[in-house]
Protein backbone atom coordinates (compact mmCIF):
# COMPACT_ATOMS: atom_id res chain seq x y z
CA UNK A 1 0.00 0.00 0.00
CA UNK A 2 3.14 2.14 0.26
CA UNK A 3 1.76 5.54 -0.55
CA UNK A 4 0.26 4.37 -3.79
CA UNK A 5 -3.28 5.58 -3.99
CA UNK A 6 -4.01 3.72 -7.21
CA UNK A 7 -6.05 0.56 -6.69
CA UNK A 8 -5.77 -0.43 -10.32
CA UNK A 9 -3.24 0.46 -12.93
CA UNK A 10 -3.37 -0.48 -16.61
CA UNK A 11 0.01 -0.33 -18.31
CA UNK A 12 0.35 -0.34 -22.08
CA UNK A 13 -2.37 -2.90 -22.59
CA UNK A 14 -2.73 -4.36 -26.04
CA UNK A 15 -5.39 -6.75 -27.18
CA UNK A 16 -6.62 -7.69 -30.62
CA UNK A 17 -9.20 -10.17 -31.78
CA UNK A 18 -8.28 -11.78 -35.08
CA UNK A 19 -6.68 -8.68 -36.53
CA UNK A 20 -9.13 -6.20 -35.04
CA UNK A 21 -7.29 -4.07 -32.51
CA UNK A 22 -9.49 -3.65 -29.45
CA UNK A 23 -6.93 -2.06 -27.16
CA UNK A 24 -3.91 -0.18 -28.39
CA UNK A 25 -1.36 0.76 -25.72
CA UNK A 26 -3.94 1.66 -23.14
CA UNK A 27 -2.58 3.06 -19.88
CA UNK A 28 -4.35 4.70 -17.01
CA UNK A 29 -4.93 4.36 -13.30
CA UNK A 30 -7.93 4.20 -10.99
CA UNK A 31 -7.64 5.96 -7.64
CA UNK A 32 -8.87 4.33 -4.46
CA UNK A 33 -12.31 5.37 -3.22
CA UNK A 34 -13.23 7.29 -6.32
CA UNK A 35 -15.80 6.80 -9.01
CA UNK A 36 -14.16 6.60 -12.40
CA UNK A 37 -16.14 6.47 -15.60
CA UNK A 38 -14.88 4.97 -18.79
CA UNK A 39 -16.62 6.49 -21.80
CA UNK A 40 -16.21 6.46 -25.54
CA UNK A 41 -18.07 5.61 -28.74
CA UNK A 42 -19.31 2.06 -29.34
CA UNK A 43 -16.48 -0.32 -30.11
CA UNK A 44 -13.90 1.82 -28.35
CA UNK A 45 -12.84 -1.17 -26.24
CA UNK A 46 -14.49 -0.34 -22.92
CA UNK A 47 -16.00 -3.74 -22.23
CA UNK A 48 -12.73 -5.35 -23.32
CA UNK A 49 -11.06 -3.48 -20.47
CA UNK A 50 -13.56 -4.98 -18.03
CA UNK A 51 -13.09 -8.47 -19.45
CA UNK A 52 -9.32 -8.15 -19.05
CA UNK A 53 -9.58 -6.96 -15.46
CA UNK A 54 -11.94 -9.79 -14.48
CA UNK A 55 -9.83 -12.40 -16.23
CA UNK A 56 -12.09 -13.55 -19.04
CA UNK A 57 -9.02 -13.38 -21.21
CA UNK A 58 -5.49 -12.04 -20.90
CA UNK A 59 -3.90 -9.09 -22.72
CA UNK A 60 -1.60 -9.69 -25.71
CA UNK A 61 0.92 -7.52 -23.93
CA UNK A 62 1.00 -5.03 -21.11
CA UNK A 63 0.32 -5.23 -17.40
CA UNK A 64 -2.63 -5.00 -15.06
CA UNK A 65 -1.65 -4.00 -11.55
CA UNK A 66 -4.26 -4.44 -8.86
CA UNK A 67 -3.48 -3.49 -5.26
CA UNK A 68 0.22 -3.12 -6.16
CA UNK A 69 0.42 -6.66 -7.51
CA UNK A 70 0.26 -7.69 -11.16
CA UNK A 71 -2.69 -9.83 -12.21
CA UNK A 72 -1.31 -12.85 -14.01
CA UNK A 73 -4.23 -14.24 -15.92
CA UNK A 74 -6.31 -15.10 -12.86
CA UNK A 75 -9.61 -16.70 -13.79
CA UNK A 76 -12.84 -14.79 -13.12
CA UNK A 77 -13.69 -16.70 -9.93
CA UNK A 78 -10.21 -15.88 -8.67
CA UNK A 79 -10.39 -12.16 -9.43
CA UNK A 80 -13.71 -12.18 -7.60
CA UNK A 81 -12.02 -13.56 -4.51
CA UNK A 82 -9.35 -10.87 -4.84
CA UNK A 83 -12.07 -8.29 -4.37
CA UNK A 84 -13.11 -7.34 -7.89
CA UNK A 85 -16.88 -7.33 -8.35
CA UNK A 86 -18.64 -6.83 -11.64
CA UNK A 87 -22.01 -6.44 -13.30
CA UNK A 88 -22.78 -7.01 -16.95
CA UNK A 89 -24.11 -4.87 -19.75
CA UNK A 90 -26.79 -7.50 -20.38
CA UNK A 91 -28.13 -8.25 -16.94
CA UNK A 92 -27.06 -11.66 -15.68
CA UNK A 93 -29.09 -12.79 -12.73
CA UNK A 94 -29.82 -16.39 -11.76
CA UNK A 95 -33.32 -16.19 -13.17
CA UNK A 96 -34.78 -19.34 -11.61
CA UNK A 97 -33.47 -18.58 -8.14
CA UNK A 98 -35.10 -16.27 -5.63
CA UNK A 99 -33.89 -12.70 -5.28
CA UNK A 100 -32.46 -13.47 -1.84
CA UNK A 101 -30.71 -16.62 -3.05
CA UNK A 102 -29.05 -14.60 -5.81
CA UNK A 103 -27.42 -12.38 -3.21
CA UNK A 104 -26.57 -15.35 -1.00
CA UNK A 105 -24.61 -16.90 -3.83
CA UNK A 106 -22.56 -13.71 -4.03
CA UNK A 107 -22.03 -13.92 -0.30
CA UNK A 108 -20.62 -17.46 -0.28
CA UNK A 109 -17.09 -16.17 -0.95
CA UNK A 110 -17.05 -14.49 2.42
CA UNK A 111 -18.28 -17.57 4.22
CA UNK A 112 -15.75 -19.32 6.41
CA UNK A 113 -16.86 -22.87 5.87
CA UNK A 114 -15.57 -24.31 2.62
CA UNK A 115 -17.93 -25.56 -0.02
CA UNK A 116 -17.24 -29.17 0.93
CA UNK A 117 -18.52 -28.80 4.47
CA UNK A 118 -21.44 -26.66 3.46
CA UNK A 119 -22.43 -29.40 1.05
CA UNK A 120 -22.90 -31.86 3.86
CA UNK A 121 -24.76 -29.70 6.32
CA UNK A 122 -28.17 -28.32 5.44
CA UNK A 123 -28.85 -24.74 6.39
CA UNK A 124 -30.93 -25.28 9.50
CA UNK A 125 -27.99 -27.06 11.13
CA UNK A 126 -25.55 -24.26 10.47
CA UNK A 127 -25.63 -20.86 12.14
CA UNK A 128 -23.32 -19.61 9.41
CA UNK A 129 -25.96 -20.19 6.77
CA UNK A 130 -28.31 -18.02 8.77
CA UNK A 131 -25.62 -15.35 8.94
CA UNK A 132 -25.14 -15.49 5.18
CA UNK A 133 -28.87 -15.02 4.82
CA UNK A 134 -28.89 -12.02 7.17
CA UNK A 135 -25.97 -10.41 5.39
CA UNK A 136 -27.55 -11.04 2.02
CA UNK A 137 -30.71 -9.43 3.39
CA UNK A 138 -28.65 -6.41 4.43
CA UNK A 139 -27.44 -5.89 0.87
CA UNK A 140 -30.95 -6.35 -0.48
CA UNK A 141 -32.07 -3.54 1.80
CA UNK A 142 -29.11 -1.47 0.68
CA UNK A 143 -30.35 -1.54 -2.92
CA UNK A 144 -33.98 -1.43 -1.81
CA UNK A 145 -35.19 -4.82 -3.05
CA UNK A 146 -36.02 -6.49 0.25
CA UNK A 147 -39.75 -6.62 -0.50
CA UNK A 148 -39.07 -8.84 -3.53
CA UNK A 149 -36.82 -11.27 -1.66
CA UNK A 150 -38.87 -14.41 -2.38
CA UNK A 151 -39.66 -13.64 -6.01
CA UNK A 152 -37.75 -15.47 -8.74
CA UNK A 153 -35.11 -13.04 -9.99
CA UNK A 154 -36.23 -13.47 -13.60
CA UNK A 155 -39.63 -12.00 -12.75
CA UNK A 156 -38.22 -8.63 -11.70
CA UNK A 157 -38.36 -5.68 -14.09
CA UNK A 158 -35.04 -4.84 -15.74
CA UNK A 159 -34.24 -1.91 -13.46
CA UNK A 160 -34.62 -4.08 -10.38
CA UNK A 161 -32.61 -6.88 -11.95
CA UNK A 162 -29.75 -4.43 -12.36
CA UNK A 163 -30.06 -3.42 -8.72
CA UNK A 164 -30.04 -7.11 -7.78
CA UNK A 165 -26.92 -7.74 -9.81
CA UNK A 166 -25.24 -4.90 -7.96
CA UNK A 167 -26.42 -6.28 -4.60
CA UNK A 168 -24.96 -9.66 -5.51
CA UNK A 169 -21.63 -8.06 -6.42
CA UNK A 170 -21.65 -5.95 -3.24
CA UNK A 171 -22.30 -9.02 -1.11
CA UNK A 172 -18.81 -10.19 -2.06
CA UNK A 173 -17.53 -7.03 -0.31
CA UNK A 174 -15.43 -5.99 -3.28
CA UNK A 175 -12.81 -3.29 -3.08
CA UNK A 176 -13.27 -2.51 -6.73
CA UNK A 177 -16.68 -2.68 -8.37
CA UNK A 178 -16.97 -2.65 -12.15
CA UNK A 179 -20.36 -1.61 -13.51
CA UNK A 180 -20.93 -2.20 -17.21
CA UNK A 181 -23.56 0.27 -18.42
CA UNK A 182 -25.63 0.24 -15.24
CA UNK A 183 -28.18 2.68 -16.67
CA UNK A 184 -28.75 1.12 -20.08
CA UNK A 185 -32.38 0.27 -20.61
CA UNK A 186 -33.49 2.15 -17.52
CA UNK A 187 -36.07 4.93 -17.61
CA UNK A 188 -35.19 8.37 -16.25
CA UNK A 189 -36.60 7.70 -12.80
CA UNK A 190 -34.67 4.44 -12.51
CA UNK A 191 -31.54 6.15 -13.80
CA UNK A 192 -31.74 8.75 -11.05
CA UNK A 193 -32.11 5.96 -8.47
CA UNK A 194 -29.11 4.19 -10.00
CA UNK A 195 -27.04 7.39 -9.71
CA UNK A 196 -27.98 7.70 -6.05
CA UNK A 197 -27.11 4.05 -5.44
CA UNK A 198 -23.68 4.46 -7.03
CA UNK A 199 -23.12 7.49 -4.76
CA UNK A 200 -24.00 5.36 -1.72
CA UNK A 201 -21.59 2.65 -2.86
CA UNK A 202 -18.74 5.14 -3.04
CA UNK A 203 -19.62 6.35 0.45
CA UNK A 204 -18.90 2.80 1.60
CA UNK A 205 -15.27 3.25 0.51
CA UNK A 206 -15.66 0.99 -2.50
CA UNK A 207 -13.88 2.09 -5.65
CA UNK A 208 -16.33 2.17 -8.53
CA UNK A 209 -15.40 1.98 -12.17
CA UNK A 210 -18.17 2.21 -14.72
CA UNK A 211 -18.73 2.13 -18.43
CA UNK A 212 -21.71 4.28 -19.31
CA UNK A 213 -23.31 6.08 -22.22
CA UNK A 214 -25.66 8.31 -20.25
CA UNK A 215 -23.49 11.44 -20.11
CA UNK A 216 -25.71 13.24 -17.65
CA UNK A 217 -25.24 10.38 -15.18
CA UNK A 218 -21.52 10.12 -15.87
CA UNK A 219 -20.86 13.82 -15.32
CA UNK A 220 -22.92 13.86 -12.16
CA UNK A 221 -21.45 10.90 -10.31
CA UNK A 222 -17.86 10.64 -11.54
CA UNK A 223 -14.75 11.96 -9.83
CA UNK A 224 -12.65 11.08 -12.86
CA UNK A 225 -13.59 10.38 -16.46
CA UNK A 226 -11.43 8.46 -18.93
CA UNK A 227 -12.31 8.72 -22.60
CA UNK A 228 -11.43 5.99 -25.08
CA UNK A 229 -11.58 5.87 -28.83
CA UNK A 230 -10.29 3.10 -31.10
CA UNK A 231 -8.70 1.30 -28.17
CA UNK A 232 -6.67 4.29 -27.07
CA UNK A 233 -7.06 6.72 -24.20
CA UNK A 234 -7.74 10.15 -25.65
CA UNK A 235 -8.45 12.08 -22.48
CA UNK A 236 -8.55 11.67 -18.73
CA UNK A 237 -9.54 14.10 -16.01
CA UNK A 238 -12.38 15.57 -14.01
CA UNK A 239 -15.77 15.64 -15.72
CA UNK A 240 -15.33 19.35 -16.43
CA UNK A 241 -11.88 18.98 -17.96
CA UNK A 242 -13.06 16.16 -20.18
CA UNK A 243 -16.11 18.03 -21.38
CA UNK A 244 -13.89 20.83 -22.61
CA UNK A 245 -11.33 18.61 -24.30
CA UNK A 246 -11.09 19.16 -28.02
CA UNK A 247 -10.28 15.60 -28.98
CA UNK A 248 -13.21 14.30 -26.95
CA UNK A 249 -15.61 16.67 -28.61
CA UNK A 250 -14.41 15.63 -32.05
CA UNK A 251 -14.61 11.93 -31.16
CA UNK A 252 -18.19 12.34 -30.06
CA UNK A 253 -19.33 14.68 -32.78
CA UNK A 254 -17.36 12.78 -35.41
CA UNK A 255 -15.46 15.68 -36.93
Amino acid sequence: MSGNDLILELKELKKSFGGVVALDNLSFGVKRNTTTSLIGPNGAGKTTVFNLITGYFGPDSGLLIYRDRPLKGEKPYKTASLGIGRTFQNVQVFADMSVLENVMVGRHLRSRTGLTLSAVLPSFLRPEERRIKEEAWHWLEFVGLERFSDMPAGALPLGNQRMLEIARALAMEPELLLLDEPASGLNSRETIAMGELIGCIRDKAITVMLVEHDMELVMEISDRVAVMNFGRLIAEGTPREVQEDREVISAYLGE
Partner: protein
Amino acid sequence: MTDWLQFLFMGIQRGAIYAMVAMGFNMIYNATGIINFAQGEFVVLGGLMMVSLTMVMDFSIVFAFFLSVGFVTIVGILMERLTINPVRRPTVLRLIIITIAVSMLFKGSAMCFWGKGSHYMRHFTEAQPLEIMGATIMPQTLWIIGILILVVIGYVLFFNCTMTGKCMRACAINRDAARLAGINDRRMVMLSFALSAAIGAIAGIIITPLIQMDYARGALLGLKGFGAAVIGGLGNSMGAVAAGLLLGTIEAMAGGYISSHYMDAIALVIMLVVLFARPGGLFGSSEEVRLKEF
Protein backbone atom coordinates in the same frame (compact mmCIF):
# COMPACT_ATOMS: atom_id res chain seq x y z
CA MET B 1 -57.68 -59.87 -10.78
CA THR B 2 -54.67 -58.42 -9.05
CA ASP B 3 -52.32 -58.74 -11.96
CA TRP B 4 -52.25 -55.01 -12.46
CA LEU B 5 -51.17 -54.45 -8.86
CA GLN B 6 -48.36 -56.94 -9.27
CA PHE B 7 -47.26 -55.18 -12.45
CA LEU B 8 -47.48 -51.84 -10.70
CA PHE B 9 -45.11 -52.97 -7.93
CA MET B 10 -42.76 -54.30 -10.52
CA GLY B 11 -43.01 -51.07 -12.49
CA ILE B 12 -42.30 -48.86 -9.50
CA GLN B 13 -39.29 -50.97 -8.63
CA ARG B 14 -37.86 -50.64 -12.16
CA GLY B 15 -38.92 -47.03 -12.38
CA ALA B 16 -37.12 -46.08 -9.18
CA ILE B 17 -33.87 -47.22 -10.76
CA TYR B 18 -34.55 -45.32 -13.99
CA ALA B 19 -35.40 -42.27 -11.92
CA MET B 20 -32.09 -42.37 -10.10
CA VAL B 21 -30.09 -42.92 -13.26
CA ALA B 22 -31.96 -39.99 -14.82
CA MET B 23 -31.14 -37.76 -11.85
CA GLY B 24 -27.49 -38.58 -12.42
CA PHE B 25 -27.77 -37.63 -16.09
CA ASN B 26 -29.43 -34.35 -15.18
CA MET B 27 -26.86 -33.32 -12.64
CA ILE B 28 -24.02 -33.59 -15.13
CA TYR B 29 -26.16 -32.10 -17.90
CA ASN B 30 -26.93 -29.06 -15.77
CA ALA B 31 -23.30 -28.51 -14.87
CA THR B 32 -21.76 -29.11 -18.28
CA GLY B 33 -24.44 -29.39 -20.95
CA ILE B 34 -23.31 -32.90 -21.86
CA ILE B 35 -24.86 -36.35 -21.59
CA ASN B 36 -22.58 -38.65 -19.64
CA PHE B 37 -22.75 -41.99 -21.42
CA ALA B 38 -20.86 -43.66 -18.59
CA GLN B 39 -23.82 -43.11 -16.27
CA GLY B 40 -25.03 -46.70 -16.62
CA GLU B 41 -21.52 -47.92 -15.79
CA PHE B 42 -21.68 -46.16 -12.42
CA VAL B 43 -24.75 -48.29 -11.69
CA VAL B 44 -22.93 -51.48 -12.67
CA LEU B 45 -19.82 -50.60 -10.66
CA GLY B 46 -21.90 -49.82 -7.59
CA GLY B 47 -23.74 -53.12 -7.86
CA LEU B 48 -20.66 -55.26 -8.52
CA MET B 49 -18.67 -53.59 -5.78
CA MET B 50 -21.52 -54.30 -3.38
CA VAL B 51 -21.55 -57.95 -4.45
CA SER B 52 -17.85 -58.32 -3.73
CA LEU B 53 -18.03 -56.57 -0.38
CA THR B 54 -21.06 -58.45 0.92
CA MET B 55 -20.82 -61.88 -0.69
CA VAL B 56 -17.06 -62.32 -0.90
CA MET B 57 -15.68 -60.21 1.92
CA ASP B 58 -18.74 -60.66 4.08
CA PHE B 59 -19.09 -57.06 5.23
CA SER B 60 -22.37 -55.93 6.73
CA ILE B 61 -24.89 -54.46 4.27
CA VAL B 62 -24.71 -50.95 5.75
CA PHE B 63 -20.92 -50.79 5.79
CA ALA B 64 -20.65 -52.25 2.30
CA PHE B 65 -23.28 -49.81 1.06
CA PHE B 66 -21.31 -46.75 2.11
CA LEU B 67 -18.01 -48.23 0.98
CA SER B 68 -19.39 -49.01 -2.48
CA VAL B 69 -20.94 -45.57 -2.86
CA GLY B 70 -17.67 -44.01 -1.74
CA PHE B 71 -15.70 -46.10 -4.21
CA VAL B 72 -17.89 -45.19 -7.19
CA THR B 73 -17.90 -41.54 -6.13
CA ILE B 74 -14.12 -41.56 -6.29
CA VAL B 75 -14.32 -43.23 -9.70
CA GLY B 76 -16.62 -40.39 -10.80
CA ILE B 77 -14.23 -37.74 -9.51
CA LEU B 78 -11.27 -39.43 -11.20
CA MET B 79 -13.22 -39.63 -14.43
CA GLU B 80 -13.84 -35.88 -14.36
CA ARG B 81 -10.30 -34.98 -13.30
CA LEU B 82 -8.54 -37.28 -15.77
CA THR B 83 -10.76 -37.17 -18.84
CA ILE B 84 -13.08 -34.15 -18.76
CA ASN B 85 -11.11 -31.45 -16.97
CA PRO B 86 -7.90 -31.65 -19.04
CA VAL B 87 -9.67 -31.15 -22.38
CA ARG B 88 -8.20 -27.96 -23.71
CA ARG B 89 -11.02 -26.76 -25.89
CA PRO B 90 -14.08 -28.55 -24.60
CA THR B 91 -17.08 -28.72 -26.87
CA VAL B 92 -20.24 -30.66 -26.12
CA LEU B 93 -19.51 -33.20 -28.85
CA ARG B 94 -15.92 -33.82 -27.76
CA LEU B 95 -16.90 -34.36 -24.17
CA ILE B 96 -19.76 -36.70 -25.06
CA ILE B 97 -17.44 -38.83 -27.15
CA ILE B 98 -15.02 -38.94 -24.24
CA THR B 99 -17.77 -40.23 -21.96
CA ILE B 100 -18.53 -42.98 -24.49
CA ALA B 101 -14.88 -44.01 -24.42
CA VAL B 102 -14.83 -43.95 -20.64
CA SER B 103 -17.96 -46.11 -20.50
CA MET B 104 -16.21 -48.74 -22.64
CA LEU B 105 -13.19 -48.56 -20.38
CA PHE B 106 -15.34 -49.08 -17.29
CA LYS B 107 -17.19 -51.94 -18.94
CA GLY B 108 -13.96 -53.64 -19.95
CA SER B 109 -12.41 -53.19 -16.52
CA ALA B 110 -15.53 -54.53 -14.85
CA MET B 111 -15.34 -57.62 -17.09
CA CYS B 112 -11.71 -58.15 -16.10
CA PHE B 113 -12.36 -57.87 -12.38
CA TRP B 114 -15.72 -59.54 -12.05
CA GLY B 115 -15.81 -61.83 -15.07
CA LYS B 116 -18.62 -62.30 -17.56
CA GLY B 117 -21.07 -64.10 -15.32
CA SER B 118 -23.90 -62.48 -13.44
CA HIS B 119 -23.57 -62.07 -9.71
CA TYR B 120 -26.03 -63.02 -7.04
CA MET B 121 -26.45 -60.90 -3.97
CA ARG B 122 -28.64 -61.52 -0.94
CA HIS B 123 -31.57 -59.22 -0.21
CA PHE B 124 -31.03 -56.44 2.32
CA THR B 125 -33.41 -58.08 4.79
CA GLU B 126 -34.56 -61.67 4.91
CA ALA B 127 -38.23 -61.01 5.57
CA GLN B 128 -41.05 -62.88 3.83
CA PRO B 129 -42.67 -61.20 0.81
CA LEU B 130 -45.75 -59.24 1.80
CA GLU B 131 -49.22 -60.01 0.45
CA ILE B 132 -51.19 -56.95 -0.52
CA MET B 133 -54.60 -57.53 -2.12
CA GLY B 134 -53.39 -60.73 -3.65
CA ALA B 135 -50.18 -59.27 -5.07
CA THR B 136 -46.83 -59.93 -3.50
CA ILE B 137 -44.25 -57.29 -2.84
CA MET B 138 -40.67 -58.15 -2.03
CA PRO B 139 -39.07 -56.45 0.98
CA GLN B 140 -36.27 -55.41 -1.36
CA THR B 141 -38.80 -53.44 -3.40
CA LEU B 142 -39.74 -51.55 -0.25
CA TRP B 143 -36.05 -50.82 0.31
CA ILE B 144 -35.80 -49.50 -3.23
CA ILE B 145 -38.81 -47.23 -2.79
CA GLY B 146 -37.58 -46.03 0.61
CA ILE B 147 -34.10 -45.27 -0.66
CA LEU B 148 -35.48 -43.45 -3.71
CA ILE B 149 -37.51 -41.26 -1.36
CA LEU B 150 -34.41 -40.56 0.76
CA VAL B 151 -32.36 -39.72 -2.32
CA VAL B 152 -35.03 -37.32 -3.56
CA ILE B 153 -35.27 -35.64 -0.15
CA GLY B 154 -31.48 -35.39 0.02
CA TYR B 155 -31.42 -33.93 -3.48
CA VAL B 156 -33.98 -31.26 -2.67
CA LEU B 157 -32.28 -30.35 0.61
CA PHE B 158 -28.89 -30.16 -1.07
CA PHE B 159 -29.93 -27.90 -3.92
CA ASN B 160 -32.22 -25.66 -1.91
CA CYS B 161 -30.80 -25.50 1.57
CA THR B 162 -27.03 -25.68 1.28
CA MET B 163 -24.72 -22.98 0.00
CA THR B 164 -22.88 -25.46 -2.22
CA GLY B 165 -26.15 -26.59 -3.77
CA LYS B 166 -27.16 -23.01 -4.42
CA CYS B 167 -23.80 -22.33 -6.03
CA MET B 168 -24.25 -25.38 -8.27
CA ARG B 169 -27.67 -24.16 -9.33
CA ALA B 170 -26.29 -20.70 -9.96
CA CYS B 171 -23.56 -22.19 -12.10
CA ALA B 172 -26.09 -24.19 -14.11
CA ILE B 173 -28.32 -21.16 -14.71
CA ASN B 174 -25.62 -18.70 -15.65
CA ARG B 175 -22.03 -19.78 -15.74
CA ASP B 176 -20.53 -16.35 -16.45
CA ALA B 177 -22.31 -14.63 -13.63
CA ALA B 178 -21.50 -17.50 -11.28
CA ARG B 179 -17.80 -17.23 -12.05
CA LEU B 180 -17.88 -13.52 -11.31
CA ALA B 181 -19.58 -14.24 -8.03
CA GLY B 182 -16.44 -16.19 -7.18
CA ILE B 183 -17.68 -19.69 -7.95
CA ASN B 184 -15.06 -22.05 -9.34
CA ASP B 185 -17.10 -23.55 -12.16
CA ARG B 186 -14.61 -26.35 -12.81
CA ARG B 187 -14.96 -27.46 -9.22
CA MET B 188 -18.74 -27.51 -9.66
CA VAL B 189 -18.35 -29.79 -12.68
CA MET B 190 -16.24 -32.15 -10.59
CA LEU B 191 -18.86 -32.11 -7.86
CA SER B 192 -21.59 -32.93 -10.36
CA PHE B 193 -19.66 -36.01 -11.49
CA ALA B 194 -19.11 -37.06 -7.88
CA LEU B 195 -22.79 -36.71 -7.02
CA SER B 196 -24.12 -38.42 -10.11
CA ALA B 197 -21.65 -41.28 -9.64
CA ALA B 198 -22.90 -41.62 -6.07
CA ILE B 199 -26.55 -41.69 -7.12
CA GLY B 200 -25.75 -44.19 -9.88
CA ALA B 201 -23.95 -46.41 -7.37
CA ILE B 202 -26.90 -46.31 -4.98
CA ALA B 203 -29.23 -47.36 -7.79
CA GLY B 204 -26.92 -50.26 -8.67
CA ILE B 205 -26.63 -51.41 -5.09
CA ILE B 206 -30.34 -51.55 -4.37
CA ILE B 207 -31.34 -53.26 -7.62
CA THR B 208 -28.60 -55.94 -7.63
CA PRO B 209 -30.39 -58.36 -5.26
CA LEU B 210 -33.33 -58.46 -7.69
CA ILE B 211 -31.68 -58.61 -11.09
CA GLN B 212 -28.25 -60.22 -10.58
CA MET B 213 -25.70 -57.72 -11.81
CA ASP B 214 -23.28 -58.37 -14.63
CA TYR B 215 -20.66 -56.20 -16.31
CA ALA B 216 -22.69 -55.51 -19.47
CA ARG B 217 -25.89 -54.14 -17.95
CA GLY B 218 -24.76 -50.53 -17.96
CA ALA B 219 -25.75 -49.66 -21.51
CA LEU B 220 -29.39 -50.66 -21.22
CA LEU B 221 -29.81 -49.17 -17.74
CA GLY B 222 -28.20 -45.99 -19.01
CA LEU B 223 -30.47 -45.92 -22.03
CA LYS B 224 -33.64 -46.34 -19.97
CA GLY B 225 -32.43 -43.73 -17.51
CA PHE B 226 -31.70 -41.41 -20.40
CA GLY B 227 -35.22 -42.04 -21.68
CA ALA B 228 -36.59 -41.03 -18.29
CA ALA B 229 -34.43 -37.90 -18.26
CA VAL B 230 -35.69 -36.92 -21.73
CA ILE B 231 -39.32 -37.64 -20.96
CA GLY B 232 -39.07 -35.64 -17.74
CA GLY B 233 -37.36 -32.77 -19.51
CA LEU B 234 -33.55 -32.73 -19.59
CA GLY B 235 -32.17 -30.94 -16.57
CA ASN B 236 -35.40 -31.22 -14.57
CA SER B 237 -34.69 -33.79 -11.89
CA MET B 238 -38.11 -33.89 -10.25
CA GLY B 239 -39.55 -34.40 -13.73
CA ALA B 240 -37.05 -37.22 -14.16
CA VAL B 241 -38.25 -38.96 -11.00
CA ALA B 242 -41.87 -38.81 -12.16
CA ALA B 243 -40.91 -39.87 -15.69
CA GLY B 244 -38.75 -42.71 -14.39
CA LEU B 245 -41.59 -44.14 -12.32
CA LEU B 246 -43.99 -43.67 -15.25
CA LEU B 247 -41.63 -45.35 -17.68
CA GLY B 248 -41.04 -48.28 -15.33
CA THR B 249 -44.75 -48.75 -14.82
CA ILE B 250 -45.64 -48.60 -18.50
CA GLU B 251 -42.86 -51.06 -19.22
CA ALA B 252 -44.06 -53.48 -16.59
CA MET B 253 -47.67 -53.21 -17.79
CA ALA B 254 -46.58 -53.73 -21.38
CA GLY B 255 -44.49 -56.69 -20.33
CA GLY B 256 -47.39 -58.20 -18.43
CA TYR B 257 -50.28 -57.54 -20.82
CA ILE B 258 -48.60 -57.54 -24.20
CA SER B 259 -45.32 -59.40 -24.25
CA SER B 260 -42.18 -59.23 -22.20
CA HIS B 261 -40.18 -59.40 -25.42
CA TYR B 262 -41.29 -55.90 -26.31
CA MET B 263 -40.64 -54.27 -22.94
CA ASP B 264 -37.44 -52.49 -23.93
CA ALA B 265 -38.78 -51.49 -27.32
CA ILE B 266 -41.87 -49.95 -25.74
CA ALA B 267 -39.77 -47.79 -23.42
CA LEU B 268 -37.79 -46.48 -26.36
CA VAL B 269 -40.91 -45.89 -28.47
CA ILE B 270 -42.36 -43.78 -25.67
CA MET B 271 -39.17 -41.78 -25.55
CA LEU B 272 -39.34 -41.16 -29.31
CA VAL B 273 -43.00 -40.16 -29.18
CA VAL B 274 -42.27 -37.67 -26.41
CA LEU B 275 -39.34 -36.27 -28.35
CA PHE B 276 -41.55 -35.80 -31.43
CA ALA B 277 -44.51 -34.34 -29.62
CA ARG B 278 -42.95 -32.42 -26.76
CA PRO B 279 -39.20 -32.00 -27.24
CA GLY B 280 -38.96 -30.22 -23.89
CA GLY B 281 -40.22 -33.33 -22.09
CA LEU B 282 -43.56 -33.89 -20.42
CA PHE B 283 -42.73 -31.65 -17.50
CA GLY B 284 -40.64 -28.94 -19.12
CA SER B 285 -41.85 -26.03 -21.20
CA SER B 286 -40.52 -25.94 -24.73
CA GLU B 287 -38.97 -22.53 -24.11
CA GLU B 288 -36.76 -24.14 -21.55
CA VAL B 289 -35.12 -26.25 -24.22
CA ARG B 290 -31.90 -24.42 -24.55
CA LEU B 291 -28.80 -25.48 -26.35
CA LYS B 292 -26.14 -25.25 -23.75
CA GLU B 293 -22.55 -24.73 -24.68
CA PHE B 294 -19.83 -26.01 -22.47
